[in-house]
Structures are given as C-alpha cells and as structure tokens.
C-alpha cells in the first residue's frame, strides 16, 4: 500500500467537492495519517479468502409486477431546491456550439 503524497484535489474532483487550499493541506495530511494506520492490514493474510460485501446471505429480490401507490409527486418535489413544473431545474448542461 502506498504512502506517497495523495493528490487530494484529484480525489476531491472525483467526489465533486470544492476544497480551499487550507482544506487540501489539512485533509491531505489527515488522509496520509489514516493510510499509515490502515497499513497494518498488510500483515493480515487474506490470500485464500473471499471478499465479504455483506454478512447476510442476500439474493435478488423480486416482487409481482403490479401497480402500488407511490409517494406523492408534489410532496417529493417540495424537498427539491428548485422545482419547476414538476421537474428538477438545473443549470444548463449542454454547451452552445459555435
């Protein structure tokens, strides 16, 4: 496991999180500190071990394809920051050509 400098801005970009310079510095050193702690996992032999995603045996759950009541549209939309005509309004996402 690596303990090189972490590209905190790159990670933050993946996480869609704007960070100040001070935060980059602080979270960078805290992240490196945590990675040093988790480095102890290297000592644990897991060569013949399957990964556990979840402890309870789970399988795909199906239900009959029948209509059931769902949440009220207006109530759900009321929790959105900028609802408009029953839709979520967002900034323009398609650039103009030319």
């Amino acid at each position: 496991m690596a303990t090189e400098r972490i590209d905190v801005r790159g990670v933050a970009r993946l996480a869609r999180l704007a960070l100040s310079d001070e935060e980059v510095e602080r979270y960078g050193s805290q992240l490196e500190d945590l990675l040093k702690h988790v480095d102890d996992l290297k000592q644990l032999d897991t060569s013949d071990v399957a990964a556990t995603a979840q402890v309870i045996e789970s399988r795909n759950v199906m239900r009959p394809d029948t209509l059931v009541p769902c949440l009220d549209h207006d109530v759900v939309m009321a929790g959105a920051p900028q609802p408009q005509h029953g839709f979520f309004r967002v900034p323009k996402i398609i650039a103009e050509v030319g």
Partner: protein
Amino acid sequence: MDPVRASARDIARAVNAREISAVEIAETMIPHVASVDEHLGAYLTLTPDLMREHARRVDARIAAGESLPLAGVPAAIKDNMCLLGTRTTCASKILEHWIAPYTGTAVARLLDAGALPIGKTNMDEFAMGSSGENSALGKTKNPYDLDRVPGGSSAGSASAVGGFAATISTGSDTGGSIREPAAFCNVVGFKPTYGRVSRYGLIAFASSLDQIGPFARSVEDVAMTYDAMGGHDPMDATSVDMPFETTAGHLREDLRGVRVGIVKEFATSDLAPDVAAAYEKAYADLAALGAELVEVELPTAKYGLSTYYLIAPAECSSNLARFDGVRYGLRVDGADVGEMYEKTRAAGFGPEVKRRILIGTYALSSGYYDAYYVKAQKARTRIADDFRRAFAKCDVIASPAASSPAFAFNAKSDPYSMYLMDYYTIPVSLAGLPSLSIPCGSALPEGGSRPMPLGLQLASPLFSERALLGYAHAYERATQHAAKLAPVQVVTS
C-alpha cells in the same frame, strides 16, 4: 404513575388499562421535555402537535377495544429517520430544511404500536462520529455531566433517554453508534443483527453495516421496542425474510448453562484501573448468575478499525453522492452544473463528512481499489470467521462497549483518537452480529468530578436476539447498575 420516569412497560400497561390516557401522558411530557432539553440539547426538532395527534389516535383505538404494545410510550426519533411532514436533517446543513416526504418502516411500526413521537434527535452529521460533536446543528450534552459528550453518533437519542426526556428512542448503528452512546448515557442500547430491522426511510451512511435499533432504560423496554419495529419489510431488499422471533416475553432470570466468552485480545489491562475493575466485576457477576466464563480468541479483531475505516467511508462516498443540490435540500449556484455540485457539497457537508468522502473516494479509485477496498472486504471475512469460531466455544461474548467513560467536549481533536472509541464495537458490526450495551457500573473519568456510567457489550451469533436480550435481562436484574447513578440536578428537577 409518573410518565417521565415510568418504564415503557408500565406506561403501555396503564394506558391499555385506561388508568391514564395517552393524551395525559403527552400533556405531561411536552412541557417537561421542552424545559429539560434547554440543558441537554438532545432534540433538533420537537413535534408537540404531532405527539398530541398520535395520543388522541391511541386513546381512540384503545377506546375501540384495541390493545397496543407501546400504547402512549413517549419516543424520540434519530434525525436520520424519515417522519412524514417533519424536518429530517441528519444534523447536516445540506438537509437543514428538508421535510421528509414519507415515514420509514421502523418509525411507522413504532407509531402504529402506540408510541408517541416527541421529536427528532441530534446526532453526528450523517451518523459519522463517536461523540455527537460532529453535528452541524446543535450541541447535545451528557445528562450525567453536562461538560461531557453523550457519545455518538446517536447522541440525542441516548441523551434523551438517559436524561428522562424520552422513554424509548431509535438509533442507528454502523460501527458502534448505538452501543457507545448507550454506555456513556447509562442506558441500554441494542443493535440487532444486520437485516433484522428495515432500513427503509433511514438515510444511508454505510449500507452493508447500517442497522436501526432501540434505546431504553431497561432491557425489557428495549425488547418491547425491538419487537414492535423489527421484522421483514418488502421495502428494504436487505431486510431478512425469515420468521421474526419476538423477545420481550422470553427474558431470563439467570445464566445457568450459558457460556460467556471473554476475549483474550481485549485484555482489561489496556484500560484505566477503575474502568478495568468495573469490567472484571461485571464478568464475575455474569459467573455468579450461573454462567461459565470461557476464554475465546479473536486474533483479527485488532484489524477491525482499519477494515472499518476503509469500508464505511467507501460506502459513504457512494451513498452521499446523491446530495448534489438537485433533488434534496441545499443548493449553492455555480456557473455550470459541475460547479453547482462542488459548491453545494462544500457548503453543505461538515469536516468529518468531507474527510470520509475523501477517504472513501480514494479507497475506491482506480489503482487503489484492490489494495484498500477489496483488501478490507477480505479482512472483514477473516473477522467474521473469527467470531464464528469463537461461538463454537461460547454462546455470547462479553467485553467493554467503549474504552473509557464519556470524555469532555473537544478532548479528541485528532480524528484517529476519536475512531479508537469504537475499538470494541466495530469488529462486531463488521460481522453483522446482534449486540447491545448495558449499564455495568461507573468510573471517575480523567479530569471529572462525577462518576460516569460504563457499558458492558454483549454480542451473540447472527439472529440470536431472543437469547441475547435474555442474557442481558438476567444481568440487569441481578445488578441494577442503571439505578445507582442519577442525572445532574437540572435534568431531574
């Protein structure tokens, strides 16, 4: 009957027998909670109108001949659980003004069983923390020393019950978020097996670990609350579809024939002397009730913290991606949609949430996924295997719930020292086991002037809730530790 101090069992019995009405209970609790909570800060939102409405409904149902298991029992709800028409914030700025559009299953079942909603309780933001201090919306105090933390993440739910500002409450536990605050606040806190209680309506933190469970001042009240909210729910695909075993009618009086595992790797010599002495005494008390103490080994438990702090942040980084300024809560405008996402999340999330999103995103990122995330998932398998082997030798494992009593505010400034608080609870969570914390004595904390409560953690095999609560009940009956401490004066007066 004093509704403030009575048990859920006694309240429900009296309301069902029409000795007192649910409305009377609500009218006593509403002003009481409002005044106590000025000191505790356990609640983010009080719901007096809703409480009265439910009280009237309970009284009408009882008048019509129904009998309700939690009739008139005042209940607090952790603020990461949806309650229709009520602010549900996760103690985060990003959801500060968000109103839940439906009621989650566990809460709906409690209310249908006759419980009365007092309000929504404070917590570490998005359930990430072990002290309550990560709330962006309020400061919750420990009812046994207002200068100390209540524990977390279910801070307000534990503080409210410990401080007699609720009879029962709901919590959620991902790595210890029910058991550690229960230990700090002198109450019983129970995390059922993963999948036993529906997570529908619980705002997700780490989906493979999150589990809802109850707080109360006695094992019997915890059992009654669990019985009301547990069981299969088609709305949660991870809720287990197997017969639900109720627990409240099956509590034990002794521990004859029970093998209690004491973990070799959890030596009490690592603890402060009076804390260690309290746990040694607790183990001796279990033996005095007829239990056979056996040493068990959990050689991989020491990897629990590292495993957890890769898996939980990875899942959190994925779950919290939904908070992007489009569908729920806060939006901060930006020049384009990407900038809107980034600014919204920067303004809406607090430091611990950002830290975990960054850790998780890193652990899942290309080039590191196998080294961190997959490795942690394999370590999780080894830890669960250790527990399986241990349960071949014992029926239940006893250990401390936390490594110290409640600490002072701002005492843990380094994130890792806070993570260490959950050293004993995390391995149990990774294995998905049912587990609880029960009051087991007290110790004078570092720099403290009052003895503070300690919690004994009991953990048992998957789906053995009935047996586990039975053992805890026998211990509680014989020791009565919770009654030996009283909350601070302003809370009791």
